[in-house]
C-alpha cells in the first residue's frame, strides 16, 4: 500500500471534519439534520472566489502567489469576505425558512424536508449563476515536496492541515470554556430550560449558524484550493459530512473532526484498494456500521 494515502486522507479528512463540525453543531443545537450544510461549503467557495475576483480587480498585486503557497494575499482577505457572506446567507435562510418553521412548532422532520428543498434550490442556483464548469482559485502549479517515508505534500496541503488543527482547537476551547460555549451546550441539552436560566436561545442559535457557516466556508475554500470548485462539491460532501458527524457523536466537535479524519483516511485507502469509482460509497458503509454497532457515535451520549 502506498503511504501517500495517509497524506491524501488527512487532507480530505480536514475538509470533511471542518464541514462536519458545523453540521454537528447545528444538529445538536437546532435539532435537525441540515441537508443544506453541504451547499454552504459550495456557496462559501464561490462567494470567496467572487470576493477574490473583486479584490483582484481592485489591486492586481493581491493575486500574485506568495512563496511557498500557490495563492496570494488576496485569498485570505477574500476568505474574510466569503465567510461574512456565507454567514449572511445562512442567517437569511434561517430567518425566511427554518425560524418560521420552528416558531410554528413544526416537527423536526418537516424542517429536515425544508432543508432538503432549500439545498436543491441553492445548489441549482449556483449552477445557474456560475455554470457547472469547474473553476479554480489559482492557476499556479505547485510541486509536492517529499516528507519522508514515501509521502509528499504541497505547501498548500500542509497549510490546510495546520489551519484545520488550529481552528478545531480554538473552537473546542470556545465551546468548553467560554460563556458562549456553555450557553450552547445548555441549549443543546434543553432549550426550554436554557431560557429559564436566562439564556437568549435565539442568540445562541445565531451564534451556532455563524460558527457553522464560517467553518463551512473555510472548508469549502480548502476543498476548492486543493481540488476544484464545482456547484456539486458540497452535495458530494454531504454524505461524508453526515457520516463524520454521526461517527463522532452528534454535538461533539472533537468527534466530528476525528470522524472526518477517519472517513478521509478510509476513502484514501479504499481508493487504493478497490478503486476511485467506489470512493463515495465509503461514507455510506461507515455510516451503516456506526448505526449498527454504536449509533451514539464515538463521543456521543446514549439515547441521543
Amino acid at each position, binding site marked *: 500500500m502506498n503511504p501517500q494515502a495517509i497524506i491524501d486522507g488527512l487532507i480530505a479528512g480536514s475538509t470533511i471534519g471542518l464541514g462536519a463540525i458545523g453540521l454537528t453543531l447545528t444538529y445538536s443545537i437546532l435539532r435537525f439534520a441540515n441537508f443544506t450544510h453541504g451547499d454552504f461549503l459550495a456557496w462559501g467557495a464561490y462567494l470567496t472566489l467572487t470576493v477574490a475576483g473583486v479584490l483582484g480587480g481592485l489591486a492586481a498585486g493581491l493575486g500574485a502567489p506568495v512563496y511557498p503557497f500557490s495563492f496570494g494575499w488576496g485569498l485570505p482577505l477574500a476568505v474574510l469576505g466569503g465567510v461574512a457572506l456565507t454567514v449572511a446567507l445562512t442567517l437569511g435562510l434561517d430567518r425566511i425558512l427554518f425560524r418560521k418553521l420552528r416558531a410554528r412548532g413544526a416537527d423536526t422532520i418537516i424542517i429536515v424536508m425544508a432543508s432538503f428543498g432549500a439545498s436543491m434550490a441553492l445548489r441549482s442556483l449556483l449552477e445557474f449563476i456560475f455554470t457547472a464548469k469547474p473553476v479554480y482559485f489559482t492557476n499556479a502549479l505547485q510541486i509536492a515536496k517529499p516528507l519522508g517515508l514515501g509521502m509528499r505534500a504541497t505547501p498548500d496541503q500542509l497549510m490546510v492541515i495546520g489551519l484545520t488543527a488550529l481552528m478545531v482547537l480554538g473552537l473546542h476551547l470556545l465551546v468548553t470554556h467560554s460563556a458562549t460555549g456553555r450557553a450552547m451546550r445548555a441549549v443543546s441539552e434543553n432549550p426550554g430550560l*436554557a431560557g429559564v436560566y436566562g439564556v437568549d436561545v435565539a442568540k445562541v442559535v445565531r451564534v451556532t449558524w455563524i460558527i457553522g457557516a464560517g467553518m463551512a466556508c473555510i472548508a469549502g475554500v480548502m476543498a476548492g484550493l486543493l481540488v476544484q470548485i464545482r456547484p456539486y462539491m458540497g452535495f458530494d460532501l454531504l454524505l461524508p459530512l453526515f457520516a463524520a458527524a454521526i461517527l463522532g457523536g452528534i454535538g461533539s466537535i472533537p468527534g466530528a473532526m476525528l470522524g472526518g479524519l477517519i472517513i478521509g483516511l478510509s476513502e484514501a485507502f479504499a481508493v487504493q484498494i478497490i478503486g476511485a469509482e467506489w470512493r463515495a460509497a465509503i461514507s455510506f458503509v461507515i455510516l451503516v456500521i456506526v448505526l449498527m454497532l454504536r449509533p451514539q457515535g464515538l463521543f456521543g*451520549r446514549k439515547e441521543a
Partner: protein
Amino acid sequence: MTALTLSDLQAGYDPDLPIVKGVSFTVSKGEAVCILGPNGAGKSTMIKAIAGLVPCFGGQVQLGETEVTGMPSHLLARNGVGFVPQTENIFTRLSIIENLQIAAQLLPKPERPRRIEAMLDMFPDLAARPRELAGALSGGQRQMLAAARALLTEPEVLMLDEPSAGLSPKLVGQVFETLRRISDTGVTLVLVEQNVRAALALTHRALVLVDGKLAHDGPTDVLHDGRFLGELFLGHRAAEAGR
C-alpha cells in the same frame, strides 16, 4: 404592592384546547402562596405559561405593574422571575458550577463570583464537588442545585413546581426548611405542591386549581380540614365522570 397578577389567563398546547381556562389571582410582594390541585389539573401548565414556556391564548400576566404575557422566558428571568420546573430542571451534561455560572450571566460581572460563592455556602452538598457533572447528583441534590440556580440571581418572584416530588420525607423537610428561609428574606414565593401538609405549613394562602379553573383562593386554615379539600378534588372527579 402586587408582585404577580393573572387576569383571566388562558394557556395550553393547542389553541383549541386550552388547559388553563381563565385563571385570575394576585400575589403581593413577599407573600407565599401555594397552588394545589389534582393531577392533570393544569398546575404545571399554568406556572409554565407564567414563565414563558407555554403559549398564552388569552388574558394577562403582570409582573408588578408591567405586562409580561407571552414574554420569552429569558427576558422574564432578566426581569426577576425565577422558575424551577418540576422535572428536567438542571443541565445534567454540565457541571454543577457551570449550571450556576450560566445563571450568573444575568448578573453584572463583578457580582457573579460572590453570588456563586453564596449559593455554594448555602448548599454545602454542592460545594463538595463543584466540577462534577450535575447528572451525577442524587434526586435531592438536584433539587438543591435547581433551587440554588434560581436563587442565585435574587429573583423577586420565585416559582417552584413540586420541589418535593420524589424525595424522601427527610429531604422534603430540608427542602421546605430552605424555602422558609428564602421566604423570610422577602422573596415572593409561588409553590405548586402535591404534598399538601408540607405546603400548608409554609404558606398562608392556597389556590386550588381544578380542571384549569380556580376552585378556591383563600387562607390555608380551612384546608387543614381534609374533608374540604377532598370535596374540592372530588367535585372535579364527579364532573369528569359525568362527561
